[in-house]
């Protein structure tokens, strides 16, 4: 999807409440080449009205074997509701996408359709 975005001159940035080190790990683990911003105190997430307060989070506390968690400690955390914003070069929001199932992310297809609709077919 990133090459399509680049064709429209759209920069991709992701943000979550992950710490800087978690974000850095995530980038390496998934081979991400776009900026992963950290909003640990949920200042931006809160300002945008994207907080999900009752998110039940299970922490493995680092105990895992081949990716399977050996310990699960539940806690209720505040996290961001997965949301995608498409913003044009004037800073105006052109498209907003939110899923009510926190485990899903915006589908690539929907995102590219929105980009096409906002910025026209790529040259």
């Amino acid at each position, binding site marked *: 999807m990133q090459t399509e975005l680049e064709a429209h*001159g759209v920069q*991709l940035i*992701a943000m979550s409440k992950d710490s800087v080190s978690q974000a850095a790990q995530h980038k390496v683990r998934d081979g991400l080449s776009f900026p992963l911003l950290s909003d640990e105190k949920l200042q931006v997430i809160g300002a945008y009205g994207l907080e999900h307060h009752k998110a039940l989070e299970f922490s493995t506390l680092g105990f895992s074997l081949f990716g399977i968690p050996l310990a699960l400690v539940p806690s209720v955390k505040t996290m961001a509701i997965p949301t995608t914003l498409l*913003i044009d*070069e004037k800073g105006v929001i052109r498209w907003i996408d939110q899923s009510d199932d926190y485990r899903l992310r915006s589908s690539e297809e929907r995102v590219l359709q929105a980009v096409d609709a906002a910025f026209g077919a790529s040259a």
Partner: protein
Amino acid sequence: MHISTTMALGAFGCTTLGWILYFAAVPTNQVAGRTSVSIFFELTGLALAVFILARNSSAAAMALAIPAAILSLFFFFLLTQRKTPVGEIAVAIGDTLPAFEALASDGQRFHSDSLAGQRLLLKFFRGSW
């Protein structure tokens, strides 16, 4: 081994496996796809556990069936929590993006002013476990 103890082991095994599969998918964000498999194991485990508990089986069987039932019921409770409340979003189409500051993964400060004149796809996501 007594048949009800075998069934109880099966119940406990199923419900535990359902949980392991579900949470093994979490770090890689594949949970949505794996849920139906886990649901199958949890339902099977729960059915076996309820059967054992209803039959007044041996103490050993009950001792396994009870945690199996609890694991399964808690799993289904967890599933009901997956819908997040939306509708409190503070921005709308047509608004100018509110300025923000955050930290980049290399520790540098990032300010949205640096995006002036740039088209942007900003994705907020839940973050790691």
